[in-house]
């Protein structure tokens, strides 16, 4: 008999979540914890946390972790992986962290083809600081710093940073997925598994962008958040494989 819903070894038990109801972080955390076990990576894994809601990810993961300065996750990861290439190193970052304050670190770690994996949570808003505009905020989307909706005249356009780095020769695998229902969750797990495998195989840099719900700051119910991802967000940030150079060709 197979136990289908086993508690992941690298996911701490008896912890009260700090994430809001309907938040996508818990789902992605669970996926990562399952993969660390299934792929036998947990014992040699080091995760770099962001500044943002997931700064507290250490409460849930039972692996070695460090908390980066805002945006500097891939620089931390570069330092760790370069001096300890035997470790499995991944960052877990949000859209403000990765595509605003950490843009330079994101692009250059990708361009150097660092042998790290980046899990990029895109919820189109700054979560922890209370719902300000992110680089990924959609046009017209209301946030606390775009009270009239994001206006490109003053606020610029949604930044497609994963699409920007996907063509770089050092980026072996880039995929965008969405936490918008059971099928999306399954696809997310598959994408992160592929990205992890790229590092395990010594191929280079991999990134998975996850469109992830933030019902609190979107001021929606969790169910409506899933719907909004499917009907609105995924139209701007279309899910799919953005780069796959595992075969060697760019």
């Amino acid at each position, binding site marked *: 008999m197979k136990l289908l819903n086993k508690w992941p070894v690298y996911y701490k038990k008896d912890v009260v979540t700090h994430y809001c109801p309907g938040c996508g972080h818990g789902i992605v955390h669970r996926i990562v914890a399952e993969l660390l076990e299934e792929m036998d990576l*947990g*014992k*040699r*894994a*080091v995760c*770099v946390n962001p*500044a943002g809601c997931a*700064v*507290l990810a*250490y409460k849930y*993961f*039972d*692996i*070695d*972790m*460090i*908390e*980066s*300065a805002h945006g*500097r996750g891939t*620089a*931390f*990861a*570069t*330092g*760790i*992986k*370069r*001096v*300890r290439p035997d*470790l*499995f190193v991944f960052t877990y970052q949000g859209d403000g962290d990765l595509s605003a304050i950490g843009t*330079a*670190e994101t*692009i*250059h770690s990708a361009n*150097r083809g660092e042998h790290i994996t980046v899990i990029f949570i895109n919820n189109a808003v700054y979560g922890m600081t209370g719902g300000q505009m992110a680089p990924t905020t959609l046009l017209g989307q209301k946030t606390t710093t775009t009270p009239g909706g994001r206006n490109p005249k003053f606020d610029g356009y949604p930044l497609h940073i994963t699409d920007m780095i996907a063509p770089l020769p050092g980026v072996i695998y880039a995929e965008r997925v969405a936490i918008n229902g059971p099928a999306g969750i399954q696809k997310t797990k598959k994408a992160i598994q592929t990205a992890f495998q790229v590092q395990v195989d010594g191929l280079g840099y991999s990134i998975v962008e996850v469109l992830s719900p933030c019902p609190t700051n979107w001021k929606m119910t969790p169910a409506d958040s899933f719907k909004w991802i499917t009907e609105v967000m995924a139209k701007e940030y279309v899910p799919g494989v953005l780069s796959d150079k595992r075969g060697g060709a760019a």
Partner: protein
Amino acid sequence: MSGNHAFGEAAIRAGCRGYFGYPITPQNELGEYMAEHLPQNGGVFVQSESETAAINMVIGAASAGARVMTSSSSPGISLKQEGISFLAGFQLPAVIVNVMRGGPGLGNIAPAQGDYFQATRGGGHGDYRTPVFAPGSVQEVADLTRLAFDVADRYRTPVMILGDGMLGQMKEPVEFPEPLTDLPEKEWALKGRGEGDSHYMASLILDVMEMERHNWELVRKYQAIAKNETLYESYMLDDAEIVAVAYGTTARIAKAAIKRVRKEGVPAGLLRPITLWPFPKEPLQDLARRIEDFVVFEMSTGQMVEDVLLSLEGKGRVAFHGRPGGVVPTPVEFSRILYREYQRQVKSEK
């Protein structure tokens, strides 16, 4: 060998296995030396996209247990301050070299000592200190770089070596110690949990009581560093009646000036702080028991002079002479100041 190359060679011999840096004059030869020699010695060199990225790579490599270094010059060191604060908070060892140049802003590329406040007062945000070594020769670059790595590891703290463009560029004979091998493993480093418990390195401590406890823990460490690691040089002080206080390049110029004025009958000596934090406070207080006159020389508008005044606690008479902006003063210039201040003292005694 140049001071910049000596920083690199000494670091490699101290077991440095990671160098992360971004080009900036007048310290480029250090990064170039590491690019050539560090990989040959089993280390990694990364030219980063910015000084900010470099110091954050240093944090990552230090967290994984390696001896690591970065270097820059004044404007670049400003960009590293975020990371230095994090290193202090994480209690991670690393060595940061600042080959100072004229400022503020881009300033220029000539030697200066205008970053004293930034180096000795922590520099970044938050309640911390950074040990600061100030070499005065290329030989001392080699010796203090080795020591800096040891102090960094012993106390788990970032350590700064504060040089200037003169020290970085000038060439002198230098002897290096034998390379260190078999450094002890760092139990606290991130290396994957293996069969044991997971490690977590945090700098966010939301609980105020916990954060306060962390702050006081750091203070106890800084007290131990102040007690055990303060370094200074006494030069011709036994019969001195006037004391020059200067560090690094300025101290060399002061020594030449002291030799000159002694020929004119001025009994001058030098107290040279080798650690700028912790500052050699007690030696200055001891001198003030028998000597009235102090002259502080700096290549700045007056920064270390504040530590001299704080150390003397109102005793003695402190004069200051500084040349900022990248101007390197001459021994003749310092001689005139020492002569003038000594004559003033003699007159006032009559």
